[in-house]
């Protein structure tokens, strides 16, 4: 409750209402103002989704002629039918799913194994290697873009699923670090006891560590999935065949070829946006927590 009293005034000073002590009617007014602001915030964040949802089910004429705030009068699947038949969005959707799922499973599994080794096992060079992982955490993506492309070109892997996947599938330092920090908090006695009972390390990881670390693993999974789904620049440069396009690349292509066909490009955008909205609706608590976690750990 204390937070209410500290928060409201700072917001109020911005909206220039400086009614120091709150009388009862003043409080009601401020509450109304507060909810008005909340409403505006919700509108700002929801409108792009809502209007493109409406537009994707309208013929082009209605998109141009009607208010975008108006729901479709006679909703039609025609736009989606067109991008799935005349363009290849079914294929793009399948590609995106395939790439994202493999990327996510690989990244989480391999990062988890690395994190467990760093957190709970002893081997020579552990600290030096961990510092190397930490150092690579600081490397901005843009730096590795050109050399990675050169490596994939020379390996003859351009225009393959491997090219899209590989750089992010063998484990990334962010995920290793995230899970390592979490595994560090598991009491050492747990492992010692299991080892005395003759448990192998992989049994300890899969049967003991994974079950008690479910929240952090879900966090890493969600972050990897969102990254894989939204990734654009890397798939754009390593593929140039229609059959390998992911949704982001397919949408950008469609947009540059049919910029005025709002019915089509908005339907295409929606195919990429909606699954993330659904993911968010299901996992919002985890996602909110995931973000805070990455902040604290970094």
């Amino acid at each position, binding site marked *: 409750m204390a937070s*209410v*009293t*500290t*928060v*409201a*005034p*700072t917001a109020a000073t911005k909206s220039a209402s400086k009614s120091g002590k709150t009388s009862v009617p003043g409080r009601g007014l401020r*509450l109304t103002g507060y909810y008005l602001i909340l409403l505006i*915030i919700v509108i700002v*964040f929801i409108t792009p989704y809502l209007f*493109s949802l409406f*537009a994707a089910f309208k013929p082009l004429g209605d*998109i141009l002629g009607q*208010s975008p705030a108006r729901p479709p009068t006679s909703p039609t699947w025609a736009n989606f039918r067109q991008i799935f038949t005349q363009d290849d969005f079914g294929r793009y959707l399948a590609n995106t799913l395939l790439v994202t799922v493999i990327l996510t499973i690989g990244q989480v599994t*391999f990062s988890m*194994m*690395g994190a467990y*080794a760093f957190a709970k096992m*002893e081997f*020579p060079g*552990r600290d030096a*290697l961990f510092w*190397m992982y930490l150092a*690579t955490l600081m*490397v901005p993506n*843009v730096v590795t873009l*050109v*050399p*990675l*492309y050169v490596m994939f070109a020379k390996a003859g892997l351009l225009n393959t699923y491997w090219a899209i996947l590989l*750089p992010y*599938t*063998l484990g*990334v*330092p962010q995920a290793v670090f995230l899970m390592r920090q979490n595994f560090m908090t598991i009491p050492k006695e747990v492992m*010692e006891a299991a080892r*005395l009972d003759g448990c*192998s*390390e992989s049994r300890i990881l899969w049967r003991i560590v994974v079950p008690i670390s479910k929240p952090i693993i879900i966090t890493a999974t969600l972050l990897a999935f969102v990254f894989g789904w*939204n990734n*654009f*620049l890397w798939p754009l*440069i390593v593929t140039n065949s229609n059959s390998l396009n992911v*949704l*982001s690349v397919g*949408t*950008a292509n469609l*947009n*540059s070829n049919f*910029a005025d066909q709002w019915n089509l*490009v*908005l339907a*295409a955008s*929606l195919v*990429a946006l909606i699954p*993330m909205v659904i993911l*968010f609706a299901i996992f919002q608590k985890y996602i*909110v927590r995931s*973000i805070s976690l990455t902040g604290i750990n*970094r």
Partner: protein
Amino acid sequence: MSVAAVTTGLGKPKSSEATPAADRRRIRTAFAFLAPSLVGVVLFLVIPVILVIILSLTQWNLLTPLKWVGFSNYANIFKYDAFGHSLLVTAYYVVLNIPIQTVVALGLALLLNNKLRGSAFVRIVAVLPFLATPVAMSVVWTWFFDPTNGIVNQLLGHIGIAGPAWLSDAATAMPIVAFANIWQYAGYNMLFFLAGLQAIPPSMYEAASLDGAGKLSQFRRITLPLLRPALLFVLVTGVIGSFQVFDTAFVLTNGGPGNATTVANLNIYNTAFQGFRIGEASAMSVILFLVILVVTVLQFTYFNRRTTYEMV
């Protein structure tokens, strides 16, 4: 068991029932666990960082033999590829983007850090854009800001204002690219401020108001200083990301009109993957890396000094 339990952290203790053979087996297992991510980190991060520096000293189109040119790329990208201009454009984007995004995120956090009904829902809604595919959302923004068919100019038309051409106007194009980014990440950054706010003990405010400190001075003397770690995180990660902006600029304007929004990453993309001038693009990448590094170090230094100053 107790011997092993006592050892902590980063040392290299012997485990209790260690025989050389068991030790060797354990080390082998550890490296087996580490192998995939180690291969990934070395192959896709360490080697590329070394390679980009080497490539920046060459002229190469991937087909003809590679030619060593020393440091001449570093001069030529400024002379012939307008890389200086794209760095300025990027800096302009960062300057537009970061302060507004940070203030909006902080404002949202202050506004929503309470137990009033509805606040929790709005907190959630504000985070939703973080998941939006930037390419897809940029398409939606292109529609919103379309000069003739876009809702923004339609609304402006209702109140008698002839809206600008937005993305086709050099003056408004970059602010829209920044807006797209602010919309996407304001709620995301809000979460770090919320976490920071919730870590401030309420007793500090109680003590301050007993001492007669007003709300504004409480905000300046308690809230802001204690939010400093969150602020540093939001600024540092935001700036690093902003210097690499690509998706939104590519879809919204593709660098135009003219080269008003040709950010550094777009210049690198065009040089490397349209012009196939690998050496020049590598030199650009190295410079951008250095710029990001310097700006990041500056932020840390500034924050450290300010923190000490405030503490005294």
